[in-house]
């Protein structure tokens, strides 16, 4: 029987976004044409070309680094902290004012549901600038001194384009550094709109530079000999490559990389909230989340019940047009990522002998889509339990005792995040103590806040972003 209460389309208007046919690079306070070629950025939900974007080559990168160096030496590096603070506050305010525009643009370029771009990404972006604005004139209390590093080269991923930009730029600028940031090639547009916001805020030229492009642009940037700092968020594989590139240099590095988080559900968990936490953990942002709870570890005694409830909950997930305000799961960001998810899902199907399940859902014919998927019968030996899929794919494993749960959770080269669901307080604290992960969510999941340090153990990277800790990567240290 069909549901009589079917939600009519509730589309967010695209009208608020003024897309230009082509975008240049943002260097020294101006949009300039790149010397290299250009590439197209598309809407992954429709495959519609949104704009042509310049691809920065090594010479462009050099110009951007030089502009950043000049700005650091002449203006930003010696500007009193309280003045820097006011620029950051301005930026934060403009982000709030232009929040809907940023959210819609993010959804168009990234494929994430508008409700997430609107309710999660953009508010946290503004909050991040507000938070670090306040640090700019209080660095002597940070514990890391007041001396900035200089020019920061920042390379960010496509899963949270604007949010990752904020995590990189806000602390860097607060500490007195200038930046050259490269957004991901599939999601450059909000970074370019941010460049416009910098202009609107009258931020001195060269303090923020945005160079668009793919891997080669990023390599040129991090390898540039005049950068003092490299900050990267992305895959562990690329993170390792960056660590090798900066080896033997004076460059400071922070890396925020992959994960394969365990979300651990005990038999005494608040079940309905745990189900929400599982769903949020793996289906938020299509599972394109480094700290996604991609391994569900559920106590055997409640495994069947949890699974049944989870499946039932998954049937109410709405997959489709990211601009529809009722969409829960949007488009996969790129054809390449979709292929990767498909490949691993097929491997999972073989490994688990058909333990794959998805709710019935109609996927649009255009664009890149993958249904929310659960694999049961997964063991630690399976690739889908070890490799980061970075998609809406959950692997379900079981455990019998807390010790076994910890052993399985920690049995990975990653160590970014973990989840614990139990109503027993002392067990939460014991588990939190044992888990080798930088962020532990107990009876909640995927919560972020500018004041809360984020970052991983082991191969999930080093350094922390957010909070006082987030300043460490941008200051020279106590005098």
């Amino acid at each position, binding site marked *: 029987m069909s549901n009589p209460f079917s939600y009519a389309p509730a589309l967010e208007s695209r009208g608020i976004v003024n897309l230009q046919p082509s975008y240049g690079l943002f260097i020294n306070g101006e949009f300039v044409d790149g010397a290299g070629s250009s590439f197209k950025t598309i809407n992954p939900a429709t495959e519609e070309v949104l704009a042509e974007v310049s691809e920065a080559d090594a010479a462009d990168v050099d110009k951007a680094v030089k502009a950043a160096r000049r700005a650091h030496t002449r203006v930003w590096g010696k500007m009193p902290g309280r003045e820097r603070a006011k620029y950051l506050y301005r930026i934060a305010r403009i982000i709030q004012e232009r929040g809907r525009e940023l959210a819609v643009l993010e959804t168009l370029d990234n494929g994430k549901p508008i409700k997430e771009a609107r309710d999660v990404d953009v508010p946290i972006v503004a*909050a991040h600038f507000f938070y670090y604005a306040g640090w700019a004139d209080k660095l002597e209390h940070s*514990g890391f001194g007041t001396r900035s590093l200089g020019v920061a080269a920042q390379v960010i991923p496509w899963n949270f384009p604007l949010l990752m930009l904020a995590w990189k730029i806000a602390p860097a600028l607060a500490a007195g550094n200038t930046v050259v940031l490269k957004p991901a090639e599939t999601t450059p547009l909000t970074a370019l709109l941010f460049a416009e916001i910098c202009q609107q805020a009258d931020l001195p030229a060269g303090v923020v530079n945005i160079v668009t492009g793919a891997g080669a642009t990023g390599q040129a940037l991090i390898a540039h000999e005049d950068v003092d700092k490299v900050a990267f968020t992305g895959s*562990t594989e690329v*993170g*390792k*490559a960056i*660590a*090798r590139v900066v*080896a*033997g240099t004076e460059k400071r590095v922070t*890396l925020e*990389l992959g994960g394969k988080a365990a979300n651990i559900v005990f038999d005494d968990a608040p079940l309905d909230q745990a189900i929400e936490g599982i769903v949020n953990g793996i289906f938020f942002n299509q599972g394109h989340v480094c700290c996604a709870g991609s391994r569900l570890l559920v106590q055997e005694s409640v495994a069947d019940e949890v699974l049944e409830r989870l499946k039932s909950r998954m049937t109410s997930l709405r997959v489709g047009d990211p601009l529809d305000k009722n969409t829960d799961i949007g488009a996969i960001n790129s054809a390449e990522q979709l292929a990767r998810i498909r490949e691993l899902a097929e491997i999972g199907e073989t490994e688990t002998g058909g333990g794959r399940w998805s709710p019935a859902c109609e996927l649009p014919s255009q664009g890149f889509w993958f249904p929310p998927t659960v694999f049961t019968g997964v063991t630690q030996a399976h690739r889908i339990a070890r490799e980061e899929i970075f998609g809406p794919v959950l692997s379900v494993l079981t455990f019998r005792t807390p010790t076994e749960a910890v052993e399985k959770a920690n049995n990975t*080269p990653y*160590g970014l995040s973990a989840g614990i669901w139990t109503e027993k307080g002392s067990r*939460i604290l014991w588990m*939190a103590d044992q888990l080798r*992960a*930088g*962020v*532990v*969510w*107990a*009876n*909640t999941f995927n*919560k972020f*806040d500018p*004041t*809360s*340090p*984020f*970052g991983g*153990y*082991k*191969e999930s*990277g*080093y350094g*922390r972003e957010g*909070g006082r*800790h987030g300043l460490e990567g941008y200051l020279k*240290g*106590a005098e």
Partner: protein
Amino acid sequence: MAGRIDVRKTYKLFIGGAFPRSESGYSYVVNDAKGQFMANASLASRKDGRDAVVAARKAFGGWSARTAYNRAQILYRIAEVMEDRRPQFVDAVFRSEGGSVARANKVVDEAIDRLVWYAGWADKITQVVGGANPVAGPFFNLSSPEPTGVVAVLAPQESSLLGLVSVVAPAITTGNTVVVVSSHERPLPAVTFAEVLATSDVPGGVVNILTGSAATVGPWLAAHMDVNAIDLTGIAGDADLARNLEIAAADNLKRVRRAPAAEPDWSQDPGTSAMTWLLETKTVWHPIGL
């Protein structure tokens, strides 16, 4: 002492609380600062490095789970036992590093005092670098530092005791376990230090001391996938080796303390950075509700 043949000591490695000879069977001649023969020391091989990592990993769970107070007590105990054996350390430093006896006395004093200083840090660093985060929501949110794990330390070549203590103590006071490659040419103070560790309530495997060449063992430790961090201080000035080890360390994203251009002046106030680079910040969230 004419007429008496002195008993020469063969110096061994310190792994997992025991004093084995090098698995390879190799040893090397250690001369004093004047170039006179002092002793034979075991020449650590890559397999000794491997065994030491296994021992350090095995010890990590227990050591990191000790209360900070207990770690502080044990570090203080090391200082006490060192004080007890002051003359031996003075002699080892004087013969290894040369200079005057007065200088050697001063070095030993500083090494012991440094241990006392780090002992006190065990139960204070958490409050200095961790704390509650005022998130914008109904959540309890706390960041605390935790030890990163097994740390490979290439100890300073020149400062064989004070330098050694200055790189080992910050690692263990914060709950890490270490595999340290001593000064190659001046291993004696390290071996004496090992003997102190063995009698100071330090659990076996928390500190493992290999005598030998950082250039030989270092690359294996840098590439070892079960080592979480590497301190390259001991290859100060060797930019090529340092770069290569840093590249090897990238294989599992070890935390790296880079090799300085020249060995630091160990008499300076060390600050907290020798500890903080070996700490992971763990942030725990929990809802606040009825």
